[in-house]
């Protein structure tokens, strides 16, 4: 077990299992280009999928979670779409560095974080809020089938539970 103190994050009213996943349009970054993409349209074409929100690219939880999703084979099971405040250029680097087959929404103003209830005001950095680590398994009807939102930091998804949730939909 870990032997360090974790910090509790404030309570948040976040999107949960059974909710309709809020639609949004933001630049979606792939390996070769980025373009405005509606989440609802993405769900129509590719669901079930996993939406992962996470701290800005380069933060260690971001690195850890992408590595873990690859190690647990989750990125091979269904489309995984990330979302953070980072720019398309940073997203491109993250994809290259992690070597994962995924795409990332860029949400610099945090509207997606707001809609999903996963905003994290970054203590010690004025004017910066980012996204909590959170996972949302979304089905063909854009219904959230499994949701986990970090209530502490650092905290990571239960990958066994996430895998079980993925098994339910794919």
């Amino acid at each position, binding site marked *: 077990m870990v032997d360090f103190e974790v910090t509790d994050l404030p309570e948040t009213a976040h999107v949960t299992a059974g909710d309709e996943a809020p639609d949004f*349009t933001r*630049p979606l970054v792939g390996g*070769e*280009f*980025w*373009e*405005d993409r*509606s989440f609802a349209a993405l769900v129509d074409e590719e669901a079930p999928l996993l939406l992962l929100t996470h701290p800005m690219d380069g933060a260690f939880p971001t690195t850890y979670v992408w590595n873990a999703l690859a190690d647990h084979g989750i990125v091979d099971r269904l489309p995984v779409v990330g979302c953070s405040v980072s720019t*398309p250029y940073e997203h*491109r680097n993250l994809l290259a560095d992690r070597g994962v087959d995924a795409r990332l929404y860029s949400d610099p103003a945090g509207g997606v974080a707001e809609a999903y209830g996963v905003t994290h005001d970054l203590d010690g950095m004025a004017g910066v809020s980012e996204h909590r680590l959170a996972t949302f398994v979304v089905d063909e009807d854009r219904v959230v089938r499994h949701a986990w939102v970090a209530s502490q930091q650092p905290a990571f998804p239960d990958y066994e539970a996430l895998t079980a949730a993925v098994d339910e939909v794919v």
Partner: protein
Amino acid sequence: MMPSDQLLLYRLQACPYCERVVRVLDDLGLDYRSRFVEPMHSERTVVRRLTGKRTVPALVDESTGVTMSESANIVDYLRATYGEGGEA
């Protein structure tokens, strides 16, 4: 307004040749979808696959099946096809 899938513009942030095409698209009142690509010329494989070159802008017009690069060519094409007295 959601962007149309009919006209797809591959562009680079702050590229003057790309902005020239954007101005013409706007002048003609055309709806289009933007795809921003790599600043690094050597990594623009998506554009090379489409046009055989790595230069931007590159335009794909789904309604006519035309794919082309070079801003002057694109501007001429857009005016001829969608301008006053154009073909479409």
